[in-house]
C-alpha cells in the first residue's frame, strides 16, 4: 500500500497553489491598473499641454498665429525623458507649424469638438497622441484648427513598471505571510489529532472504557467510532469472562461429585495397577478442582476490580488472613513456614477480598511449586510503599520467564502440572490497586527466590482522612 501523504502536506500544497494562483491574478491586476493609472496621469499632461497650445492660438491680421507656450512643453517635460512631437493643422489641412509628417489614425475632420487621445507610432517609436480641435470664430479665417501633440511612452512605461513592481512586492510579502500563517494554523488545527493518537497509544491495553478526551467537533465521529468499537470489544470480553466463570462454576459441581465418587472407591479392593490408576485420577481431579477454583477466583477478581470501591485496610491483617488460608493444616510438618510483620501499620487502599486472593495465590504457588523446606512471608514498609514478600527455598523462576508467568495460562516451564493463573491473578489485582508484581532472584545460600507484591501505601494523614471518609470502622476482617 502506497503511504498517503500527510494531512499537513496535503493542506500546505493546496494552500500554496491557491496563494500562488491568487498572487498571479493580483500581480496581473496590479500591472493592468498600473498601466491604466500611468496612462491616465500622463494623458492628462499631454492633453493639458495640447489645450494650452490651443489656448494660445490667435488670429492676427487674418493669419493664424500659434505661439507655443514654453509652459506646455515644461508640462510635457515632467515626463523627463520622453520626446515630444507636435503639429498644428490649419482649416485647410495645411501644417501651420511643427512636424509635417505627424499623422493621426482618426481623420481630423471627424474631430470637431472633443479632444481625442490615441496610440500610434512616429519616427519608429510608440507615441501617445492628443488631438485638440479649436474652432476659430474670426471671420477672416473660418474653420477649425487641430493641435496634435505626441509624446513617446518611456515615462509611462517606467511608471507602470515601478507601480507593478511595488504592488508585486506587496503581494509576494502578503502571500508569504499568509503562507506562514496558514502553516501555523494547520499545525495548530491538527494538534488534537496528534493528542488523540498519543492518548490512544498510551492507553493500557486492558482498558476498554470509552476514550474521554476533549476533541474538536470534526473528530467526534472518529472518537465515537473508536468508542463504539471498544464498547463492543468490551462486551465481547465480558461475555467471554462470564462464559469462563459460568463454565468453571458449572464444572465445579460435577467435579465435587466426581471427587466424592473417587473417594468412595475402596483402594484395598483394587489390585496394584488399579490403585495406581486411582491415585492418578485423584491427583488429576484435584488439579482440575484447583484450576476451576482459580478460574472462578480470576473471574471474581476481574468482576470486583470493575465494581468494588477501595477502602483503607491494614496490609498486615490482610496478609495474615491470606497466610492462614493458604497454608493448609495438612502441610508437611518438615516445612518451616514463618510470617513477619513490621511494627508500623502499613495502611493501604484495597479491595480486601481480591488482595487476599492475590496473596493466597502467590503463597499457594510457592508451596506447590517452590518450597522445599522453608517458606517465609514478610510484610515490609518503605516510605510510601508497602510490600508483601513471599520467599521460598525452591529453584525459582529464571528471569527471562518472569514476564510470561504473569500472563494467563503461561506458567513456568519448570513447574509441572499447575496452571499459571496464580501469578496472573496476583498481577491483575496489584495493577488494579496501583501496585505491581515483582520477582527477586535467588541468591545462593543467602536468600531464596522471592515474589514481591508492591502496593502504594497511605501516610498517616491520608489514612485518617480516608477512614473518616469511608465511615467504615477500621476494617480488619471481611470474610
Amino acid at each position, binding site marked *: 500500500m502506497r503511504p498517503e501523504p500527510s494531512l499537513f502536506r496535503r493542506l500546505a500544497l493546496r494552500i500554496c497553489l491557491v496563494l500562488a494562483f491568487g498572487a498571479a491574478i493580483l500581480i496581473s491586476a496590479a500591472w493592468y491598473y498600473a498601466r491604466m493609472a500611468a496612462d491616465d496621469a500622463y494623458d492628462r499632461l499631454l492633453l493639458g499641454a495640447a489645450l494650452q497650445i490651443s489656448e494660445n492660438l490667435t488670429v492676427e491680421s487674418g493669419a493664424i*498665429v*500659434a*505661439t*507655443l507656450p*514654453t509652459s506646455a512643453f515644461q508640462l*510635457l517635460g515632467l515626463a*523627463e*525623458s520622453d*520626446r515630444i512631437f507636435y503639429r498644428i493643422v490649419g482649416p485647410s489641412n495645411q501644417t501651420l507649424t*511643427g512636424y509635417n509628417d505627424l499623422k493621426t489614425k482618426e481623420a481630423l475632420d471627424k474631430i470637431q469638438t472633443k479632444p481625442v487621445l490615441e496610440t500610434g507610432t512616429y519616427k519608429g517609436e510608440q507615441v501617445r497622441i492628443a488631438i485638440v480641435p479649436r474652432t476659430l470664430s474670426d471671420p477672416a479665417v473660418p474653420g477649425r484648427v487641430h493641435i496634435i501633440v505626441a509624446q513617446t511612452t518611456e515615462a509611462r512605461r517606467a511608471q507602470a513598471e515601478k507601480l507593478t513592481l511595488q504592488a508585486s512586492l506587496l503581494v509576494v510579502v502578503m502571500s508569504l505571510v499568509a503562507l506562514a500563517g496558514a502553516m501555523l494554523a494547520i499545525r495548530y488545527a491538527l494538534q488534537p489529532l496528534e493528542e488523540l493518537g498519543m492518548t490512544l497509544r498510551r492507553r493500557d491495553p486492558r482498558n476498554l472504557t470509552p476514550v474521554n478526551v476533549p476533541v474538536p467537533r470534526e473528530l467526534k465521529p472518529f472518537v465515537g467510532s473508536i468508542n463504539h468499537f471498544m464498547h463492543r470489544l468490551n462486551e465481547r470480553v465480558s461475555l467471554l469472562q462470564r462464559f469462563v466463570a459460568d463454565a468453571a462454576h458449572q464444572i465445579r459441581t460435577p467435579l465435587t461429585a466426581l471427587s466424592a465418587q473417587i473417594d468412595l472407591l475402596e483402594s484395598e479392593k483394587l489390585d496394584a495397577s488399579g490403585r495406581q490408576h486411582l491415585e492418578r485420577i485423584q491427583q488429576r481431579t484435584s488439579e482440575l478442582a484447583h484450576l476451576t477454583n482459580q478460574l472462578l477466583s480470576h473471574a471474581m477478581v476481574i468482576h470486583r476490580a470493575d465494581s468494588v470501591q477501595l477502602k483503607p485496610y491494614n496490609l498486615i491483617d490482610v496478609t495474615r488472613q491470606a497466610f492462614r488460608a493458604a497454608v493448609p493444616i495438612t502441610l508437611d510438618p518438615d516445612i518451616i513456614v514463618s510470617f513477619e510483620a513490621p511494627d508500623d501499620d502499613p495502611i493501604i487502599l484495597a479491595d480486601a477480598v481480591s488482595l487476599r486472593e492475590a496473596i493466597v495465590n502467590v503463597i499457594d504457588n510457592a508451596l506447590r511449586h517452590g518450597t522445599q523446606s522453608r517458606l517465609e512471608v514478610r510484610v515490609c514498609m518503605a516510605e510510601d510503599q508497602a510490600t508483601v514478600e513471599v520467599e521460598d527455598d525452591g529453584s525459582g523462576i529464571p528471569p527471562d520467564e518472569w514476564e510470561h508467568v504473569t500472563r494467563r495460562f503461561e506458567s513456568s516451564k519448570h513447574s509441572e502440572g499447575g496452571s499459571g493463573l496464580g501469578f496472573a491473578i496476583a498481577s491483575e489485582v496489584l495493577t488494579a490497586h496501583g501496585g505491581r508484581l515483582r520477582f527477586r532472584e535467588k541468591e545462593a545460600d543467602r536468600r531464596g527466590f522471592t515474589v514481591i507484591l508492591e502496593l502504594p501505601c497511605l501516610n498517616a494523614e491520608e489514612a485518617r482522612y480516608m477512614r473518616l471518609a469511608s465511615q467504615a470502622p477500621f476494617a480488619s476482617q471481611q470474610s
Partner: protein
Amino acid sequence: MSLYRLIQLCFTLLLVGLVYSSAQASEGETAHFPALQTETARLEIHAATDTVAMEPLIRDFQKTAPDIAIDFVEYVTNDLQDKAEITCQNKAVIGDLLISSAIDQLVKLANDGCALAHVSAETKRVEDWANWRNEIYGFTFEPIVFVYNAHLVPPDDVPRTHAALADLLRQRIDYYRGRIGTYDIRVSGVGYQLAFEDTRQPSSIHGRLIESMSRAEVKVHCCTNSSLDEVASGRLYIGYNIIGSYAYAASLKNPDLKVVVPRDYALILSRGALIPKTSKQPALAARFIDYLLSERGQEVARREAFFFHKDANLPEGVDGPKTLEESGISRPIRIGPALLAMQDEAQRRRFIADWSRLMIDIKHPTAAP
C-alpha cells in the same frame, strides 16, 4: 543730421557685414590636433564653440589619450544646427561629437532621434538640469554677463542689474546711442536662445530693457567675440548678453574690458555635448564626454577654458555676487523639452521678426519719440 545718421548707419551695416562675412569665413574652419604618440584613432568634433576655448581641454584630453588625434571643426551655432539636421535626415555622417552653446538646438536634435545615449560613472554626476535623456550633457557653467569699457563708462554708470541698464540707457541715451552691442539673433542660435530666455523671466524689466535698447540703437553681432572686440576697442561701450567665459577671457587680454554678472538674475548657460546617431566612433566620443565631465576636465575648464564653475567663487576681477549658487540669482537654462518651444519654426520666425522690428528696422531717429 538725419543724412549723417543714415550714412553712419550704412557704414555700420557695411562694417557689420564685413565682420559677419569674415566671421563666416573663420568659422567652419578645421583645427587639427595631431596625436601625441602614434595615432590609432581620430575624433572628429563639430562645434559651435571657439576653438581657443576648447583647446586647453583638447590638449589635456590628449595627455590622457596620447594616441588620439582630434579634428575640431568650428561653426556658428545656426550653421551647425542646419548641417546636423540635414545629415540626420539623410542618415549621413557629421563627425563623432557635436558641441554647441545653443542648447535648444541640441534638444531639437535629440528630440528628433538624432542622438545616442551614453551613461557612465562620470555622467551620473551631472546635475538634472544639465542632462536630457542621457543624450545631451551640459559640461560648462557659464553666466551671461554685461561687459563695458572702463575708459568710456564712468564708474557711476556701471549697470549691475538689468533694471539699472534700462535706466542708464534711458537717462543717458545721447551718450550711449549706438554704443550698445549684443547678439544678432537672426544668425546666432545662442543669441536667440538668450533673448528668448530673457522674455521668460518673471519681471517686466525685460520689456523696458528691450525698449531702451531699441531707442539706443543697439548694434548687433554674429558672435560673442566680435562684440567683445568692439567693446575692447572702444567702438562700443557696453555689451549685453555676453557669454561670461568669453568675456572673462577677453578681459584678461584687455584690462579696460570689465565683466559684470547682473545681480538681479543671471542666466546660466551650459554648453552641451551630444553624440550624433550616425557617429562612427560613439565609444571614443563618449570617452571625450566623460573627460569633459570628469573632475580633471572640469578643473582644466575652470582654470583655462571657461573660468566659471558651479561650486567655485567668481573669477577675480568679475563684478558680481561672490558665488552664483548661494546668491540665488542663477537661472540655469534647463536642458529639456521646454526648449523645444523656442525651436518651433513659426515661433522662431515671429520672435525674430518682432525683435528685428525693434532692434534693426528702426533706421531713423524719428521712430524714437
